[in-house]
């Protein structure tokens, strides 16, 4: 039986279909989840996709965080359910306090959309085990509020405990502290990532296929669990 990976759609989500396609290409079954429902339908993992939930009103992710399904997700994530938040999903995870810190307006104040070189630094998480430590990949970034900020103590803790999952190379596209592109929670089941691995899963449409590893990682973990 293949693993079932849920993708939550909020009003204003854009990349839910791409995320579902990436799940399919990783040989798992994508399950569409609607934010207003109260049931995770027994999925084995969840992806919070990119986009502009609730039009980014108030703060990116601030309103989505209180969606009925998010309450269930927060509890499930604390119990170990693998959760990947991509871009807007990363913002929702920070607003939900499943991940520390916050994402603020890009330093340059422009929407940034580019093929971005990254270094994968933590391959112990549920979503990165198919990469090699230090592996460099090219994955698109496209965001308006991608500047990762946290207080010094939090940053120090993330750095010293190896919870920086991915870091920007060459150019820091949004001013994120310590070039942070992605982080994880203490247990490693919750990962937030500003770049979009679901846009780098097929040669036809991506700058690379190097994003697929995020999805195959979790599927392998679920199949072997």
């Amino acid at each position: 039986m293949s693993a079932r990976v849920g993708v939550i759609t909020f009003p204003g989500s854009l990349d839910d279909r791409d995320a579902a396609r990436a799940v399919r290409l990783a040989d798992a079954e994508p399950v569409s989840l609607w934010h207003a429902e109260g049931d995770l339908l027994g999925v084995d993992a969840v992806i919070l996709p990119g986009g502009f939930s609730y039009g980014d009103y108030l703060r990116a992710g601030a309103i989505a965080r209180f969606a009925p399904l998010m309450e269930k997700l927060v509890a499930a994530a604390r119990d170990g359910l693998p959760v990947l938040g991509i871009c807007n999903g990363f913002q929702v995870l920070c607003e939900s306090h499943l991940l520390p810190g916050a994402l603020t307006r890009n330093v340059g104040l422009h929407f940034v959309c580019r093929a971005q070189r990254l270094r994968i630094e933590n391959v112990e998480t549920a979503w990165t085990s198919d990469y090699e430590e230090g592996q460099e990949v090219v994955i698109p970034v496209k965001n308006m509020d991608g500047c990762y900020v946290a207080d010094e103590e939090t940053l120090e803790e993330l750095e010293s405990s190896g919870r920086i999952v991915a870091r920007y190379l060459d150019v820091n596209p949004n001013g994120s502290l310590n070039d942070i592109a992605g982080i994880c929670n203490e247990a490693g089941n919750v990962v937030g990532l500003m770049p979009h691995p679901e846009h780098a899963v097929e040669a036809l449409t991506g700058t690379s296929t190097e994003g697929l590893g995020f999805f195959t990682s979790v599927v392998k973990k679920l199949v072997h669990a």
Partner: protein
Amino acid sequence: MARFIVEVMLKPEILDSQGQAVARALPRLGFEGVTQVRQGKRFEIEVEGPADEAATERVRKMAETLLANPVIETFELRAE
């Protein structure tokens, strides 16, 4: 009916790139002598009943829960 004002600002240590952009634009318009601009949000909230302690506490809770993100922002609350 009670009316409350909640003002939300980024914490001083958080980079305010929008405020900086405004500060850079002002001299170009001939407004000299601006040393800093910080940009925030103002909410006007009307609630049923008097502006008593209980109402103030409820609005404070709203600000902590939704209006401000305590990780990066602070807020000030007053009845008007």
